[in-house]
């Protein structure tokens, strides 16, 4: 078993990257690998728990919540979180933590492979 790391710098809805990242992370967990993900810049918008949109069956935040509940370590950049008015992630889905770039440096260290999206 290996560890797969992700750096995600775009938010939900506007760009496809969140969906690709979530799909790859799900596939990695399905295969028994570990997943680490750092949400940077607009990436920190993904786990906001109050998302509601009739056009989508599953909200982005639910995908990230499910990843976290399956053991994926997901950390959002605190500077980015506060810049965007998300107040230390108080409205994040369960399991997503707020941290900083040292956490990303640790993810780089721990990951066998790293994907930027």
């Amino acid at each position, binding site marked *: 078993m290996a560890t*797969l790391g992700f750096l995600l710098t775009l938010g939900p809805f506007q760009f496809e990257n969140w969906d*690709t990242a979530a799909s*790859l992370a799900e596939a990695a967990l399905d295969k028994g690998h570990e997943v680490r993900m750092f949400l940077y810049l607009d990436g920190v918008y993904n786990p906001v728990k109050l998302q509601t949109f009739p056009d989508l069956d599953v909200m982005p935040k639910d995908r990230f919540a499910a990843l976290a509940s399956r053991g994926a370590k997901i950390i959002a950049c605190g500077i980015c979180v506060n810049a965007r008015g998300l107040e230390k992630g108080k409205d994040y889905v369960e399991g997503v933590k707020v941290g900083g770039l040292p956490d990303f440096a640790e993810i780089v260290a721990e990951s*066998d*492979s790293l994907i930027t999206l």
Partner: protein
Amino acid sequence: MANLYLLGAPAGRNGLALAERDEAAAVVLIQDGVYLDVKCLAGKKVYAVRKDVEKRGLASRLPGSVELIDYGKLVDLVLENKVINFA
């Protein structure tokens, strides 16, 4: 172990130019990277994410040598090789 170039958009074009020169290159087209013209990669292994190709109606436009893969296979490739990110 190959250098596995993950080519999306808009950075994919820059990665493609490197992959062309890199003898150890294999390439995966993802997201809008499936629009890239990969003729310059003749002789190199090229994959594309099946879902990204099919949604865009591009299956018949890609060279037959391009192998369509799912996310599970992409996870395998990503862990077996060194990922060169150009999303």
